[in-house]
């Protein structure tokens, strides 16, 4: 009886210890390993852009917004730099602007001289299809059109390189 009360605290403490060790912001995406949802939108320049058309290439799908400061501002040069470095090796970077004003988004792309294709998800359908809950989020899609990794937060050169190199090294099955 005497030891029952302290003993009953053990499972509670264990649960708390587990709870404090996990990052509540780290929400695992059920989409990793699954086929990337198809979408077909227009780029800011008015050209049609369909994900299926990128089959056979490694796709870096980046969700951003002009109001997403500072993370999107930090990663914009990273995306542009790596897009230039990898575009000749069968890699395509696609930016999806969400919850944004057209003028603000255009200014953002001008300010960072973004040259990779960007589309605007005006209905939110693409964001929901990819389970996006904040910006920036980046999905790495392999040559067969499967989502292989998801990165939440600003992208770094390291994260870009590691994921893209891994997918490039795979043979197209």
């Amino acid at each position, binding site marked *: 009886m005497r030891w029952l009360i302290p003993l009953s605290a053990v499972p509670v403490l264990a649960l708390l210890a587990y709870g404090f060790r996990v990052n509540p912001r780290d929400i695992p995406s059920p*989409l990793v390993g699954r086929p990337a949802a198809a979408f077909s939108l227009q780029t800011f320049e008015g050209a049609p852009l369909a994900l299926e058309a990128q089959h056979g290439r490694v796709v870096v799908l980046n969700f951003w917004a002009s109001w997403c400061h500072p993370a999107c501002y930090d990663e914009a040069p990273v995306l542009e730099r790596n897009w230039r470095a990898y575009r000749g090796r069968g890699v395509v970077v696609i930016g999806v602007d969400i919850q944004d004003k057209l003028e603000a988004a255009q200014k953002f792309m001008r300010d960072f001289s973004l040259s990779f294709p960007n589309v605007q998800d005006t209905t*939110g359908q693409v964001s*929901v299809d990819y389970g996006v809950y904040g910006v920036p989020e980046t999905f790495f899609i392999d040559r067969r059109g499967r989502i292989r990794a998801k990165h939440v937060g600003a992208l770094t050169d390291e994260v870009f390189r590691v994921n893209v190199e891994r997918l490039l090294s795979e043979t197209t099955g």
Partner: protein
Amino acid sequence: MRTRASVLGLALVVVAAGAAAETRRVAEQQVQDVAAQLRCVVCQNLSVADSPSETATQMRTIVRERLEAGETPEQVTRYFVDRYGEWILLSPPRHGFNLLVWAAPAAAVVAGFTLVGLLLARWTRRRASAGPVVPSGVDAAMRERIRRETEMEP
């Protein structure tokens, strides 16, 4: 002339029926019921039904479109869970590890009552077995003095 009119009438009926089958009328309440189960992804502890954010508005539109396309509320919820994980649900589904969340409060209440019951039983037993209270350090002379002094009070 009559055949032409009846053909036209038939065509109108077919077109109307087709349109009705394509998009079901969905009451706002149905959309709200589904949206109330979903977590607004950009808010803190708000459902898609309650949030005024643009994201939630877009999600409500998606809920409505899917219901209108003939999906059941369960299928619409499933669609969101498939993309966001169970995290998107405001109430965790009652299975597996999640059962702990549902069972823990009830278990805590039962444990609390059991503990209070046991302690009460122990305290009353101890008091009963202790017999009449004999304050120590108060002898007969002292008691006599207290009696005298309290009686002296006006």
